[in-house]
């Protein structure tokens, strides 16, 4: 597999009156062509900042990329000038934002908004661009494209607007698509349609996708690989099966346990106690230690390195150290994993 993107030791900080907020504290990951990587984590874990840094969309100041490399096809995006970035943004890397209500310009016709990128990046003439817009709108499943492109965003429903946003993102056939909670604001049925659409288009265009979400159901649906972020760091990364069926980090256990499954009985949900740490003064040692019931002495003193579980699966927790005691995941999570192992082998047409 060919590597499209490599992020190495990325640090992003924001200078505020209160001091330096270390939003991203050493993130490493890579992405192959045609692959979907999901980044999950709570709000404030740095998942949006990481992807915004890739596109240099972080307002500087107060933000700054403190150190690290973002290699996109071998070129370091972190060192590019604004002018150079403009050629990449929207053309080679494009983004789908969370809120379709605010990411479109309410005073511009939808067709013109899609055409902008085509005219700017692809140097198309207006009639050419118009033709392409119709194609794009049809691709994302908007019927009667000829007329719809002359309408304003307020004439579209939420789901339809998100389709327009997807069309804008796809206009220049990007190699990398970053989707920041693209379906969080939508209803389940519309969400299902948009997800199917994105997967379908990815198959057709062979683009890679970074998918940010906190909905683990969506992750299971779209992702090839999953990175779990906590307090500005990736704490566990692996294939989707690694993360869901064999999670190793207590934080991942917590995330999985806090979602009720549709066949769960009346047991209490496994909630992660407390709330994420303040990144103004990140705690010494493992940032998750304060909320971790399995925390050991070393967690309070030293940050755990990435331990290798398998070739595809890594996790940053001292529990994987050879001297650590053998600890089972909490009962609720274990039950979930066992339950899944059962259903995964079961019949396909099984009804809920």
């Amino acid at each position, binding site marked *: 597999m060919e590597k499209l993107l490599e992020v190495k030791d990325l640090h992003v900080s924001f200078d505020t009156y209160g001091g330096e907020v270390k939003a991203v504290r050493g993130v490493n990951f890579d992405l192959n062509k045609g692959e979907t990587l999901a980044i999950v984590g*709570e*709000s404030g874990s740095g998942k949006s900042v990481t992807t915004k840094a890739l596109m240099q969309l972080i307002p500087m100041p107060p933000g700054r990329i403190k150190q690290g490399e973002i290699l996109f096809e071998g070129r370091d995006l972190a060192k590019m000038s604004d002018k150079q970035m403009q050629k990449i943004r929207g053309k080679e890397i494009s983004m789908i934002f969370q809120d379709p209500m605010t990411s479109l310009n309410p005073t511009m016709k939808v067709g013109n908004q899609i055409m902008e990128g085509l005219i700017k990046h692809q140097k198309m003439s207006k009639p050419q661009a118009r033709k392409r817009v119709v194609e794009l709108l049809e691709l994302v499943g908007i019927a009667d494209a000829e007329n719809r492109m002359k309408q304003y965003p307020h004439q579209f429903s*939420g789901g339809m607007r998100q389709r327009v946003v997807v069309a804008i993102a796809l206009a220049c056939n990007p190699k990398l698509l970053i989707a920041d909670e693209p379906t969080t604001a939508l*209803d*389940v*049925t*519309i*969400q*299902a349609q948009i*997800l*199917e659409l994105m997967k379908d288009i990815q198959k057709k265009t062979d683009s890679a996708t970074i998918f940010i979400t*906190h*909905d*683990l*159901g*969506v*992750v*299971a*649906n779209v*992702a090839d690989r999953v990175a779990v972020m906590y307090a500005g760091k990736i704490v566990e990364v692996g294939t*989707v*099966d690694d993360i*869901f*069926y064999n999670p190793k980090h207590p934080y991942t256990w*917590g*995330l*999985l*346990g*806090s*979602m*009720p*499954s*549709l066949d*769960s009985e009346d047991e*209490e*949900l*496994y*909630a*992660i*106690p407390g*709330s994420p740490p303040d990144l103004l003064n990140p705690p010494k040692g493992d940032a998750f230690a304060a909320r971790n019931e399995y925390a050991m002495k070393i967690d309070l003193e030293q940050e755990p390195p990435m331990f290798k579980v398998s070739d595809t699966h890594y996790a940053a927790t001292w529990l994987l150290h050879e001297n650590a005691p053998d600890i089972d995941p909490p009962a609720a999570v274990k039950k979930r994993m066992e339950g*899944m192992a059962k*259903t*995964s082998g079961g019949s*396909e047409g099984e*009804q*809920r």
Partner: protein
Amino acid sequence: MSKEKLVEIKNLKQHFKTGRHSVVKAVDGLNFDIYKGETFGLVGESGCGKSTTGRTIIRLYDATDGEVLYNGENVHGKKSRDQLKKFNREMQMIFQDPYASLNPRMKVEDIIAEGMDIHGLSKDSNARKERVHELLETVGLNKEHANRYPHEFSGGQRQRIGIARALAVDPSFIIADEPISALDVSIQAQVVNLLKKLQNENGLTYLFIAHDLSMVKYISDRIGVMYFGKMVELADAEELYKHPIHPYTQSLLSAIPLPDPDYERSRERFTYDPSQHDTSEEPEFREVRPGHFVLCTTKEFEQYQREHGTGR
């Protein structure tokens, strides 16, 4: 569980005028009961009228038609100040957005105690303070928080303040309108566990409105599915998820992604086509299986009974 009815909703209608000749029928002829001590879940897509239902029940809107009976008494209609006060003490609401539902210029203590002040529930300022501290502890905050302002709290903590405020007047019925959808997953679990704990301890009755179906299934005893202002299906939570009958419910359930990659790879989604229904007569709410009601015509009723059987 005792099957005593706490709230009865009878042919409730809420129509909004949006122009001289156009009317939005947000809620259109709703009938259901909520039993004492249960959690009734109301699900549906945005715009189906589930929030309007909740708001009409608590009389934030005046109903266009129909009745809401609370302990046998109508909530709507002309009422004296005292009568209204009595209802307001019994019924409380938790709102969706913990950022918009707390007054940013009031201290937490005053936010929580506002209802107590109105109803004259605390003898003096010491008793008031004590009660606020007690409530803060009930919802998992501590008493130092009483003197702070809402902006000093995270979303999950704010939602706890909202819950404490609802509990302050000792209500027996709480309407929770999407109380967790603005929160992070791990925090959602904390709040849901808290709501369940409070129900066990105080025997509360909930109307739980949400679009997150897996969470609704988890917290509810019975669930009603709404579509375009009407209830299309009502059943026990387990029953509804195991044997969805109405095609809309089936499509809704088939659209939920579950945190299980293998299941996701094989999941098939049904789409709902409203035109598939029999239109020969006005559909009615009928009991297809015991305790399991579906909106259908006579013809569909027979078909559903054939397909889904009558027993368990």
